[in-house]
C-alpha cells in the first residue's frame, strides 16, 4: 500500500548517516538503513573472514550468516556497543564455529607434537615470495581454531589483546597464550620446511 512512498527518501540521505542512527532505524524495521550498514561494513568483514578461514566461499557464507543474524537480533541490540564492533564479533564467532567444525581435535595434538621440535631452526632465511606465503597458509591450517582466530586477529588484523579477548569471549591471558602457541607453531613450520 505505502510501498512506493518509501522511495520518496532522498537516495543519498543515508550515506552520511552514522552507524548508530542506522542501527536504530534497522532495529525498528528499516531495511534500507540496514542495507547501508551491510554495504558499509561488508568489505572489511569479508577481509576478516577470508583471513580467518582462508577461503573466499566460506568467508562469504560466514559474513552473510552474520548479517542475517544481526538483522534478527537488532531489536535487542540497543546500541550497547558500536555496530561495527558488534558485527565484527558476530563474524568472528561464525568463523570460529566453521573452524571448529572443520578440524578434528586429533590434529590439534599433532600440531602440538610438531611444536615440540627445537624452535630456533632458522639460519638467515629468505622469507619472501609466494612459496613462503603458501607455506604459512598451510601452517595456519594446522593450528587449533582458537589459536588461529587469536593469531589472525592479532597479526593480520592488528587488534589489541583486549579487543580480541572481547571478540572471542576469552580472557586476555588466554588470548596471549594462544597467540604465543600459534607463533611457535608457525615459526617452526616455516623453519622446518626450508
Amino acid at each position, binding site marked *: *500500500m*505505502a*510501498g512506493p*512512498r*518509501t522511495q*520518496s*527518501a532522498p537516495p543519498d*540521505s543515508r550515506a*552520511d548517516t*552514522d552507524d548508530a*542512527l542506522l542501527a*536504530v*532505524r534497522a532495529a*525498528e*524495521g*528499516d*531495511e*534500507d538503513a*540496514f*542495507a547501508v550498514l*551491510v*554495504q558499509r561494513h*561488508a*568489505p572489511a568483514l*569479508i*577481509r576478516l573472514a*577470508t*583471513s580467518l578461514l582462508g577461503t*573466499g566461499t566460506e568467508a*562469504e557464507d560466514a559474513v*552473510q550468516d552474520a*548479517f*542475517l543474524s544481526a*538483522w534478527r537480533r537488532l531489536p535487542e541490540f540497543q546500541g550497547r556497543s558500536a555496530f561495527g564492533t558488534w558485527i565484527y564479533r558476530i563474524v568472528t564467532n561464525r568463523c570460529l564455529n566453521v573452524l571448529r567444525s572443520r578440524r578434528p581435535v586429533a590434529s590439534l595434538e599433532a600440531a*602440538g607434537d610438531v*611444536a615440540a621440535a627445537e*624452535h*630456533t*631452526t*632458522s639460519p638467515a*632465511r629468505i*622469507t*619472501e615470495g609466494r612459496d*613462503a*606465503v603458501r*607455506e*604459512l597458509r598451510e601452517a595456519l591450517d594446522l593450528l587449533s581454531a582458537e589459536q588461529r582466530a587469536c593469531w589472525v586477529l592479532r597479526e*593480520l588484523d592488528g587488534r589489541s589483546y583486549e579487543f580480541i579477548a572481547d571478540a572471542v569471549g576469552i*580472557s586476555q*591471558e*588466554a588470548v*596471549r*597464550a594462544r597467540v*604465543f*602457541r600459534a*607463533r*611457535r607453531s608457525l*615459526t617452526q613450520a*616455516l*623453519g622446518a620446511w626450508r
Partner: protein
Amino acid sequence: MTDRTDPPNTPSAQGDDELLPCGRLLSRTWDDWEQQTDDPHLRSCPHCRQAVHGLDDLESVVRGLQQETDTTAAAYDTEPLTRRIMDVVRLELRPGRPLPLGEPAEDLWIMEAVAARALRAAAETVPGVRAGSCRLLDGGGDGGDDGTVEVRLDIHAPADAPLPELAARVREQVWEAADRELGMVIAAVDIRVTDLVPTSMADDQEGGSA
C-alpha cells in the same frame, strides 16, 4: 613471567614454553619483542636474538600474506553479497504493528516500520537533521483508539540551530508527510534531540541530500 602465557585453563601450558640457554623463557623474549621493550639483554644475548629472528622472519611472510589478502579483498565486489543478504532480509517478516489510516470507519492500515520510514525521511528534509528512532503509538490517550497516532521521533540536530524553531519545522514536515503521503491522522509529534552535530558536518549533509 610465566603467568602471561600460562592461562589457568591450560594445565600443560608450561610444556609449550621453552627455556632458552640464557635462562629466559621464550614467551618473555617474544613478549618483550612485541612490546618493543628496551632491554640490553635482548640486544646482546645471542639466544634471544635468534629467537626474535624467527619471529622477524615470520613477520615478513605475514606481510606477504597481508598483501595477498588486501589484493583479494580490494578486488571483491560486495554488491552481489549485499543483494543476497537484503533479499533474505526483505522476505523475512518482522513482527510489526499495524496502524490505522484514514477515517475511523475505514479499514485501512499501515505497518509501523513503513510509516516510520516515511516520517523519518520527512524530518530529514529539514537541513542538517538526521532521524533515528521513530515510534508510532496509538493516539487518543489511555486505551483510546480514536484512529489517531502519536509520533515519538529522535533526531540529531545541527549544533548551531535554535532548537525550538528547528523542532517546529521538523514537526511541520512530519505532520505534512503523514497527512499528504500516508493519510494518517497525527495527534502529536514528540521530538527528542539525542545529539548535536557540528555545523560543518550538517552543511555537508545538507549538500549531500539537496
